[in-house]
């Protein structure tokens, strides 16, 4: 299957556009357009035409009205997709009627199938879409290259594979057998009150289990919705700082700023106090020093009495005990003390002042000056440290302010708030989900016991024995179906894994870094590193991730049985340098067996890429927009 033509009328930026995709040797088609000219709109037009919905991938959350602004208010929005299959041509046409600029009713899908020159309008147009690309797996056929990370987050792939593998048929069978099983139990209740009572109890427990299972589904759905929304918000907020966090950082920086300013001011005051307090002794330092030296010289020359503590000496004499070392005084010591006291008492008043008062006082001043230098240096060091800290805080504050002013947008704040709320509710849901799972486990155990009791009671009663046998048959069949379901799912998974590995290692330019790709039970992907044997997906480059997704997508295409085209918007946006060239070659290789439509920005369509797609048979078109940015057009190069 391949897309032959797209016709768009009045859809957002496109007023009247028709793009043909003629088949050439390499079925690859390149569309090039700047951001904002309508690249994503083109992808969305196709998705809207097929499924009546558009993914929310428009930049800046600014959605133009679906009806082109320069179209008349009574115009219709129409998108047609012309598809060629092996034996027919199908036209998918979706129309949205507008009256006075307002949409009237739902958009209508019509499908026209032409076989052997005969065109018929399909009675079930949606079913025709399902034959092309079913809605649940459309993400694997039409996608935005910038959203590739989503493939590595939790997703609904498992459920989509379920649909692809037609396991729903087995589920129908399961439902019927369960009803039959129930009927046999109900029939048996008529023959015994014990069986009736047991059946009632079983029914109650099963009802409880049903409720719990519904609850479980709700939780799973809610968790999935929250996760998807969080992923979307993360995408929207990529590179955008959290305004609330910026506000909180601003407040805490402001507090630190104030604190440091106060500390600096306090240090300044401390320094000034120290200066004023010490100024007299510093200015008089040389005088003090001279006088100390003079007094000490005079004492040495016996011009002044040795400074003594008269009171202490008198006490020592009285107690006959040295007041310093505590020893008893001998005669010699007593004589010495008496002589010293006598000499001291006969010295002049000035001598006493000099030795007893001034000498110790001036020494205190002398020490104070030395201490001053140390204290001043300490204060200055603190002062310098605080100033450096304050400078750093001021820089951080200015940086924060710059970001804050740039992103002070109510919309961003709301998104961050929403993300926080979602995370909180997700945490709560996960907790409740855990409780729900425990309750289900316990109920299942009780139901099993109750069933055994019931089976026993039915087997023991001649009239109900036959029902029990039939029930056992149902149980056996249900077990077989369950096993088959598991086996199909596992086989499918292994097939996808095998194809993903084959595709990846055929296409990769790095042949020796990775050993294999694991597709887990929930269809999450792991890229196993050759050396470590561990999942290296988080350290893989954007190009490697993109190749992995492409390989997986092609694997899904194969098991789905839908040989439909692959359309990627900005496929090389997250790939840089040499890998762009590698990737372009990969697309070229894949296009031997599959139609590929790539929508690139001029930046993606670099010289290296141009060279890969240089073949003239490869169609290139430019998406442009008019001057007043209301209408886009697509022209062949």
């Amino acid at each position: 299957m391949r897309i032959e033509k797209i016709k768009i009328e009045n859809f957002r930026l496109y007023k009247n556009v028709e793009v043909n995709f003629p088949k050439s040797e390499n079925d690859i088609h390149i569309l090039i357009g700047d951001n904002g000219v309508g690249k994503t709109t083109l992808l969305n037009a196709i998705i809207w035409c097929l499924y009546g919905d558009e993914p929310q991938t428009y930049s800046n959350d600014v959605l133009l009205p679906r009806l082109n602004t320069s179209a008349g208010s009574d115009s219709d929005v129409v998108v047609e997709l012309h598809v060629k299959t092996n034996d027919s041509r199908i036209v998918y046409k979706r129309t949205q009627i507008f009256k006075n600029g307002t949409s009237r009713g739902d958009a209508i899908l019509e499908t026209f199938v032409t076989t052997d020159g005969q065109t018929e309008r399909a009675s079930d147009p949606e079913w025709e879409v399902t034959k092309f690309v079913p809605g649940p797996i459309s993400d694997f056929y039409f996608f935005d290259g910038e959203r590739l990370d989503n493939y590595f987050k939790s997703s609904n792939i498992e459920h989509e594979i379920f649909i692809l593998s037609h396991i729903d048929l087995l589920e129908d069978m399961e439902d019927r057998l369960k009803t039959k099983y129930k009927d046999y139990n109900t029939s048996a209740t008529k023959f015994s009150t014990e069986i009736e009572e047991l059946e009632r109890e079983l029914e109650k427990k099963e009802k409880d289990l049903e409720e719990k299972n519904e609850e479980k589904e709700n939780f799973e759905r809610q968790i999935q919705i929250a996760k998807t929304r969080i992923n979307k918000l993360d995408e929207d907020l990529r590179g955008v700082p959290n305004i609330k966090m910026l506000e909180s950082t601003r407040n805490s920086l402001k507090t630190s700023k104030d604190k440091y300013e106060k500390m600096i001011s306090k240090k300044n005051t401390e320094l000034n106090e120290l200066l004023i307090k010490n100024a007299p002794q510093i200015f008089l330092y040389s005088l003090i020093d001279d006088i100390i030296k003079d007094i000490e010289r005079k004492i040495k020359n016996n011009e002044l009495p040795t400074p003594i503590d008269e009171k202490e000496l008198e006490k020592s004499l009285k107690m006959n005990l040295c007041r310093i070392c505590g020893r008893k005084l001998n005669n010699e010591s007593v004589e010495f003390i008496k002589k010293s006291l006598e000499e001291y008492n006969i010295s002049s008043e000035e001598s006493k002042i000099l030795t007893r008062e001034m000498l110790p006082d001036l020494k205190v001043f002398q020490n104070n000056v030395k201490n001053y230098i140390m204290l001043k240096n300490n204060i200055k060091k603190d002062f310098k440290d605080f100033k450096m800290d304050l400078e750093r805080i001021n820089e951080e504050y200015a940086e924060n302010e710059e970001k804050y002013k740039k992103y002070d947008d109510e919309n961003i704040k709301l998104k961050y708030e929403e993300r926080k709320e979602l995370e909180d509710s997700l945490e709560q849901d996960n907790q409740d989900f855990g409780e729900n799972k425990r309750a289900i486990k316990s109920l299942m155990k009780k139901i099993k016991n109750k069933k055994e009791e019931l089976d026993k009671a039915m087997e023991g009663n001649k009239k109900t024995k036959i029902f029990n046998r039939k029930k056992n048959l149902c149980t056996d069949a249900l077990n077989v179906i369950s096993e088959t379901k598991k086996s199909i799912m596992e086989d499918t998974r292994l097939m996808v894994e095998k194809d993903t590995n084959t595709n990846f290692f055929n296409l990769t330019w790095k042949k020796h870094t990775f050993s294999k790709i694991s597709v887990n039970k929930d269809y999450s992907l792991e890229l196993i590193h050759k050396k470590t044997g561990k999942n290296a997906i988080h350290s893989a480059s954007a190009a490697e991730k993109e190749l992995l997704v492409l390989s997986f997508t092609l694997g899904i295409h194969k098991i789905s049985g839908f040989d439909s085209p692959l359309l990627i918007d900005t496929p090389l946006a997250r790939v840089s340098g040499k890998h762009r060239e590698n990737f372009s070659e990969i697309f070229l290789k894949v296009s031997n067996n599959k139609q590929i439509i790539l929508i690139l920005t001029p930046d993606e369509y670099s010289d290296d890429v141009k060279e890969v797609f240089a073949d003239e048979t490869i169609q290139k078109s430019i998406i442009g927009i008019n001057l007043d940015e209301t209408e886009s057009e697509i022209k062949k190069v």
Partner: protein
Amino acid sequence: MADRIYIEEETLKFYDNSKILNIVGSKRKEQFLVAMAYGYMGDTSIELKKRKELFLIKDLEPLEISLFRSLAIKNEDVHIISDLDEVFSIAQKYANGGIKLIERLERKCSYEEHMKEFEKKIQQHISSLNID
């Protein structure tokens, strides 16, 4: 014996308004000691013409009196230290000289620079003493 310390009456206003002497809310006694030491450092001692009391002598610590006595010894014979009236008189003259020098210093620089200038003087003095 004198019971208070005097300054030149006309300088009282400056004691009240000096940025340096009031920068940390210094008390009168501290202001006087700074002025006195600054006067000694600037070798400026000026006789008081019209006295005005500044604070009570009883507020002085014995340590501070030793500082006063040191100044007196520098100017007179050592016996002067027992004559406290004379000691205080010499101190007052230095303070009178010092306060005029501080006034001149303040007039020379801007408001923000007062303390920096004063600190610079102290630092220069310390450097000359070779004790840092």
